């Protein structure tokens, strides 16, 4: 039976909401192929993020699917309660952007590429870098991810 783009989107959504957000393995066998791989660098970046922000969760905004791939555009939220990239816990809540690409074949995930905006969404709000030092100087009023 051919798998539709809609079915692939459901699998990606279920993975992020039931496995990733809930930190729960229960649905893994159903959603993920035994031989599935991740892009190591990006998953390990997420390993550091979840260590620093234990309550990290994504909120799915849009999904784009073509062939065997589904891209998921999300915002994320989390609280900085443990050290993260050299910054001591600040207790601050952050909101930011995340985009992940899933490859799905025969109704199961076979590859995950996570991607997250570290600098703008995490380092600047935590005070690791003055926003004013970049590009246009002080006075920018443009919104950024999650702030609107």
């Amino acid at each position, binding site marked *: 039976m051919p798998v539709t783009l809609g079915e692939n989107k459901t699998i990606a959504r279920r993975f992020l909401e039931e*496995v*990733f957000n809930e*930190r*729960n*393995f229960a649905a893994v066998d159903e959603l*993920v*192929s*035994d031989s*599935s*791989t*991740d*892009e*190591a*660098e990006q*998953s*390990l*970046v*997420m*390993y*550091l993020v*979840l*260590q620093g*922000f*234990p*309550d*990290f969760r994504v909120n799915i905004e849009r999904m*784009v*699917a*073509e*062939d065997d*791939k589904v891209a998921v*555009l999300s915002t994320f939220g989390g609280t900085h309660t*443990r050290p993260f*990239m*050299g910054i001591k816990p600040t207790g601050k809540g952050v909101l930011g*952007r995340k*985009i992940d*690409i899933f490859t799905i074949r025969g109704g199961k*995930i076979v590859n*995950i*590429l996570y991607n997250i*905006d*570290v*600098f*703008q969404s995490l*380092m600047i709000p935590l005070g*690791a*870098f003055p926003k*004013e*030092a*970049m*590009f*246009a*100087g002080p006075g*920018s*009023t*443009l*919104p*950024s*991810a999650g702030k609107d």
Partner: protein
Amino acid sequence: MAVTTDTVPIEETHKRIVRRWVKEVFNEHKLDSVEKLKVPEYIDWDPYPGQREYLSGFKSVLTAFFAAFPDFHYDVEHELAEGDMLVCLGRWSGTNTGTFMGLPPTNRALTGRRIDVVRFSGDKMSERWGTGPELQMLQLMGVLEPAAPLEDSRPKAVCLRFIDEVLAGHDAASLELLIGSEGVLRTRDAIGLLVLASAFSEITLTVDEAVAEGEHVTAVVTFSGTHTGPLLGYVPTGDRVTARQALNLRVVDGRVVDATVDLGIGELVGQIARKREADHARHAG
């Protein structure tokens, strides 16, 4: 799939426009093409820090990047399109031979992998969202302390540093140094690592034994962590738990390219569950 009157799928038209953007703006550094390919009321949902206006502000950002990285180049790795949305996975690279944000040139070759999503309105881009961890750029800007250079690139030494600095030390610069850009992890292991990272703090990893055979390394490690975060519906218990596990890693040219890194999440969850059951039994008794 939506179809235009001349039967070219609209998604193909959008891919052509993005390829033109990549060629002219990112690779030929023609800033005049920005307005040709984006609508005047274009919205960037993830503008660069300090960027003032969406279109002219983005041109200022590009001017700064191109001055700092005169050979700035972007390669599309994959694109997927559906309706008015298009997603582009790509890698940028450039050599820092010019001044960047007042910092003197380092002459270092930098690269980063990122995903951008654009929305089309007619034949122009009208919105954009984007992400990239940009670990090398963070080091260039001094936001991240650079990792100590790799003095011993033999597989066993690389693995020991990976275990100590990345898995136990959560060091982003070491991650960037020690993980090959094409490196892979089993998805199940990665899920285990993510669950473990949020569930446990005060993580320690001791290497009990490490054996290298060619590019393959097997390391037996003991994980200890305190359960202070979300875990399968268990509220944080404060339990200190320990598991011993064998990791298998493959190292090529001083970088980990393939890893089986189950730190024993199943065993750790089991210990917490058994302790709760024992507590319940005691209270019930």
